[in-house]
């Protein structure tokens, strides 16, 4: 049978590889020191010396974008790791065992997922203070319900499957059933969900940093760069374009990848 073409997966994979590669590069090497201030080189337009120009402190925008992408990806990875691990654990237990705890947690998840994550993150930041750790924890916790909901449905469906029933009759323990029989079945729904969650995490982090409540200066973050660049929009539009385009590119790559993975699953 001819394999169905999946351009979304292809383009998404390529863009994501490019951005992750650039971020990895930025973690080890950048053309200039991203925090080095140079008064003589303020607002240089993009050129061969400074690929994306310089900002209001004379810092190289390209180096800052590379490092900012790395920060975004790292934060998104931590957020998704917290959300996915805890969410999958809660969803698995709820879906498999059911009962009143399941009912309550499902209702709670429904309520939490109705709220936009930026609003909830704002509440958490106003309670816990601003900073990178707070943002990661706040967003991580806020990502739990969406994963829990997804995994719960899948686990509840598996529970009634005949192979689980026969495993129970053979005397296999609950723990072993969860780990050896249900967990592998979750891979299909979890992989696209992780990629899409990654996407939402990048957007939420960029939004929070844009509002000045995420990664704090002088560390480069795409969101805070974008909000700084707004003051100099007339003088140095390349600063805003570079930071914003980097965010859009990250999101584009992962959204295409997530979509492509979902299509492959359905096909």
């Amino acid at each position, binding site marked *: 049978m001819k394999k169905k073409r999946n351009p979304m997966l292809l383009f998404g994979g390529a863009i994501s590889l490019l951005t992750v590669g650039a971020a990895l590069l930025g973690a080890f090497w950048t053309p200039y020191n991203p925090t080095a201030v140079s008064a003589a080189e303020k607002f240089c337009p993009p050129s061969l010396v400074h690929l994306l120009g310089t900002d209001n402190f004379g810092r190289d925008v390209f180096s800052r974008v590379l490092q900012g992408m790395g920060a975004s990806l790292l934060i998104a990875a931590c957020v998704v790791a917290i959300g996915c691990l805890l969410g999958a654990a809660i969803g698995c237990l709820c879906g498999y065992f059911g009962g009143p705890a399941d009912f309550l947690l499902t209702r709670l998840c429904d309520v939490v997922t109705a709220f936009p994550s930026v*609003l909830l993150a704002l509440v958490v930041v106003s309670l816990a203070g601003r900073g990178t750790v707070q943002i990661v924890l706040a967003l991580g916790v806020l990502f739990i319900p969406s994963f829990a909901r997804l995994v719960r449905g899948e686990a509840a469906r598996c529970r009634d499957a005949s192979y689980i029933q026969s495993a129970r009759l053979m005397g296999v323990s609950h723990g072993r059933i969860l780990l050896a029989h249900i967990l592998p079945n979750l891979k299909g729904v979890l992989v696209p969900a992780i990629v899409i969650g990654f996407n939402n995490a990048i957007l939420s982090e960029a*939004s929070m940093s844009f509002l000045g409540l995420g990664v704090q200066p002088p560390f480069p973050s795409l969101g805070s760069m974008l909000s700084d660049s707004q003051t100099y929009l007339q003088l140095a539009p390349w600063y805003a374009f570079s930071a*914003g385009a980097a*965010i859009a590119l990250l999101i584009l790559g992962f959204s295409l990848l997530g979509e492509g993975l979902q299509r492959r699953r359905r096909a």
Partner: protein
Amino acid sequence: MKTLFSKCAALIITLFLVSALAFFAFALIPADPATTMLGSEATPEAVAALRAQLGLDRPLPVRYFEWLTGFLRGDLGESYLYRMEVGQMLSGKLAVSALLTMLSFLLTVALSIPLGVLAGSVRNRYFDAAAVGLNQLVMSVPPFFLGILACYGLGIVLKWFTPGAYVSPEKDFWGCVRYLIFPALSIAIPRSAMAVKLLRSAIRDQLGQDYVRTARSRGASETSILLRQVLRNALLPVITFLAVSLAEIMTMSILIEQVFSIPGVGQLLLSSVSNRDYPVVLAIVMLLAAWIVTIHFLADLLTRLADPRVRLG
């Protein structure tokens, strides 16, 4: 009728729970408002007096009950920082944010339905690939970046408006609307890209159904099939999405208000978060939460009204 009643009950219970969660979360933070207000050099007696004056020395459930009944009567609390009624601080800003939300919503609807029908009905491989690609690209641009692009392209280069030169609606209503069109577009364009995607795939789904084949064999024209029959069915998922958009748009406007320096609820919320002015944050969060929960409730009702299958189930 019975489901309507139980839905209403669920709405009230949810609102009640959200209010309790929000109130206790803000009440349990370690920072003591009385100490914050008086500074660290205040005498313990002065702090105790202020605490008594603010009612902070009474048990939490009592304070919650008083806050809730006050809230329901329209008394939203008092700002720690400005010693001012929150309701008074909000009055003008709420109107601005509501105007921005409505404009964004109308633009989203006006953009997404025609474009979605176009994307769903044109059967040309190249057009389709271009439409899907462009749609995905537009979806990926965060609204606040689109806002900055609009400020640069339409504001600074084309001079259609002056970024930051906000006009208040009391002074010049149409001038305000003219300024708000640009932030509203920045919110509406990515949002409608998502709606277009939904509508496109729903139309594609419907076009493959048997009733479309029957209608074609009876000699109905493609346009009449599309507009009279397919669209009615395809719009169902989109209606829910658009209704829920009203809740998303409200949060997006927090960010967009920053970009276009619009003195709305979002700006007040952000400055209150920075200043740790908890009563203001609590009041705004509670209002937004009530708005979101109500919107979801109405979207649910709307789906039931529009789709008899859900109504029965």
